[in-house]
């Protein structure tokens, strides 16, 4: 694997972001949510639909690129690509777009994700008596579903229990992540939990979902759409807005990687996929954790935020429990994270809303703006093959 500078690094930029409202029942089709988000992102960028020639989304997204293209009057598409592994795809959509732009395959690429995850098909909802059609993906669940290990929360909890045992971190340390997210959501009018902060006591009192995870360790479910527009930095400088430079973008799958259940290798206290992403982000950007003013760390479940702080090098192994104390990850702390409220507080948009917050922090337009942001780090879903980004100001 090459850790030399990626050619798109510093030469590509995010120039537009757009999102629908985040709700529990959008009342609209998933396609309409996708089209609305893309429309808003293009307006934000100041780019006409006819200029878009590439699109990237998740393999789990239900909205075909060509439906969106037809809806908005785009012309030819010369690049379309989908990323697998659920929420792990988030930042990789931007990486794909940047690679396409840098290689000349496309000039303007839209990345999008839209779903009615709350009011429509909810993840992890279906359990059937019939065996699923046998293939390598469904066979994987044979090691969990018959034993009652059925949901993402349960899969993450298995690793988290071991992590707490080994590191001495406690449920309260997990709660500090939820408290920080909800504190930030409380001042973000777009957040579902706007004006609804929680205390650590409320976190501790919330009911068990799967020990060691309380209800408030688990992200919400959301209906909504989010889109982002990527083009070359050169083009970006001619657009009305402030370019947000893609300073690093990486995908990673760890040794012994499984889909949410990497239980068979190592000590369950690390995330091999994030270790891979972290190494690439630092090496290709030339930056280090000390250069980052704010981070959006994927927070489907609180434990993996602690793991990520360690894998990304913001603190040492097993030390995240100390790092998150005393408001260090809240606004005003050493590393404010998830300033939009995260997926626990703002919305669960498979992490795409987190990339948008990274863009706003670099632009200086977040409702919870961190002072003097030069570099913001964003991660995608963990426990699965994942991705990450470093976004920065144009110098």
């Amino acid at each position, binding site marked *: 694997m090459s850790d030399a500078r990626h050619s798109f690094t510093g030469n590509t930029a995010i120039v537009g972001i757009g999102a629908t409202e985040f709700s529990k029942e959008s009342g609209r089709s998933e396609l309409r949510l996708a089209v609305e988000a893309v429309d808003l992102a293009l307006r934000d960028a100041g780019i006409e639909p006819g200029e878009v020639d590439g699109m990237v989304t998740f393999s789990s997204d239900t909205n075909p690129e060509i439906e969106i293209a037809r809806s908005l009057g785009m012309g030819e598409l010369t690049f379309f690509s989908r990323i697998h592994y659920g929420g792990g795809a988030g930042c990789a959509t931007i990486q794909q777009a940047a690679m396409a732009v840098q290689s000349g395959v496309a000039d303007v690429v839209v990345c999008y994700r839209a779903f009615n995850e709350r009011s429509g098909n909810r993840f992890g909802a279906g*359990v059937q008596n019939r*065996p699923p059609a046998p293939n390598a993906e469904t*066979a994987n669940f044979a090691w969990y579903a*018959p*034993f*009652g290990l059925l949901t993402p929360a349960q899969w993450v909890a*298995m690793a988290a229990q071991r992590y707490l045992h080994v590191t001495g971190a406690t449920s309260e340390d997990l709660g500090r992540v939820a408290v920080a997210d909800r504190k930030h959501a409380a001042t973000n009018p777009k957040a579902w939990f706007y004006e609804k902060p929680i205390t650590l006591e409320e976190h501790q009192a919330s*009911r068990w*979902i799967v020990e060691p995870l309380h209800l408030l360790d688990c992200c919400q479910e959301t209906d909504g759409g989010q889109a982002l527009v990527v083009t070359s930095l050169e083009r970006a400088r001619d657009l009305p807005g402030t370019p947000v430079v893609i300073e690093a973008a990486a995908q990673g799958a760890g040794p012994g990687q499984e889909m949410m*259940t990497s239980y068979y290798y190592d000590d369950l206290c690390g995330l091999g996929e994030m270790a891979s992403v972290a190494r690439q982000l630092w090496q290709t950007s030339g930056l280090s954790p000390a250069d980052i003013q704010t981070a959006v760390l994927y927070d489907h479940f609180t434990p993996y935020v602690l793991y990520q702080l360690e894998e990304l090098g913001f603190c040492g192994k097993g030390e995240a429990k100390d790092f998150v104390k005393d408001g260090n990850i809240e606004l005003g702390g050493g590393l404010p994270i998830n300033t939009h409220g995260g997926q626990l507080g703002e919305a669960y948009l498979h992490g795409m809303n987190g990339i948008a917050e990274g863009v706003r922090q670099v632009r200086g337009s977040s409702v919870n703006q961190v002072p003097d942001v030069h570099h913001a780090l964003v991660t995608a879903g963990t426990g699965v093959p994942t991705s990450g980004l470093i976004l920065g100001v144009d110098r």
Partner: protein
Amino acid sequence: MSEPDPAADASASTEGGPSLDGRLQSFVGLSTGPTHRAPDPVNLPMIRHWIEAMGDRNPVYVDEEAARAAGFAGIIAPPTMLQAWIMRGLRTSQEADEARARGVETPGSPNDQLMAVLDEAGFTSVVATNCDQHYERPLVPGDRLEATSTIDAVSGEKKTGLGVGHFITTRLEFTDQDDQVVATMLFRILKFRPRPPAGSREAAAAPGTQSTLQAPPAERPKRPRPALTQDNSFFFEGARQHKLLIQRCAECGTLRHPPRPSCANCRSFDWDTVTASGRGTIYSYVVNHYPQVPAFDYPLVVALVELEEGTRLVANVSGITPDTVAIGTAVQVGFEAFDDVLTLPVFRPVVASAASGDASGETRKS
């Protein structure tokens, strides 16, 4: 009707204090919650939906002339629609569910508190048993109903086909726009402690009652089936023969679980299996509370067991509770047939004095 939530927070109940029966009886006579007000008057369109859904062809519900010929002043509503007029509607129910999902604790009504007391005492399951309605007069379009409900009776502990539990009878009184009582309804549920599966499943309903008897729960749903491929089916075949098999590279002897087609160590595609000793330790575990899938008993302990051969696998553990399960516990495999197709390894803690005994220790379901 507001369905009792089996997962209702039990924090409203008191600590220590009087006996369970005493606490249960203290709820009798209390209102179950606020008055239910019908959102709409009794009306023809809703009657029409009802009779079409129910397949009821009696003309007195839709035809003025037929109704008069039958001796009524005009169209009447089907009597069994009684409760439909005061239903709170899907959105209200959903919003209540969501509020609960967000962790919003609403001040518990006496009914919520009663359910919480029973949940806490282990009577976590609920089944509606029977419902009696008594009508004072037919309802006619334009009637606007209200209903108040009180906890009418809580039985002592009863043994039923479903398990030990308490019957709770709720009395609803329906009044019209003139505050006249138009109907009463007795609605009975059984809050019970779920029994382990198998055994008889007689209906818990009290005999001799009329009208809407609800069916007892069907046979326990099966556990989710594994998707079987040529790579993994040997494991489940082995489990049926009460063998815990681990895939082994036939070339270099490396063990691997979960199974895969080739050896990452030497790239050989040849493999066989070894039968594990079944001894291992709990490497990690979870206690599942929610969601509750009918095939399993909750809280459900699921463990990641590290076998002494070095591989790990996920499995259930019996003979251990959420309070006693711990990382590092020594366990020994047994096997349990969950239905006629699915047999799975189930571990149990090794009892120190028996540790030197037979390693094949099997547990069988009675």
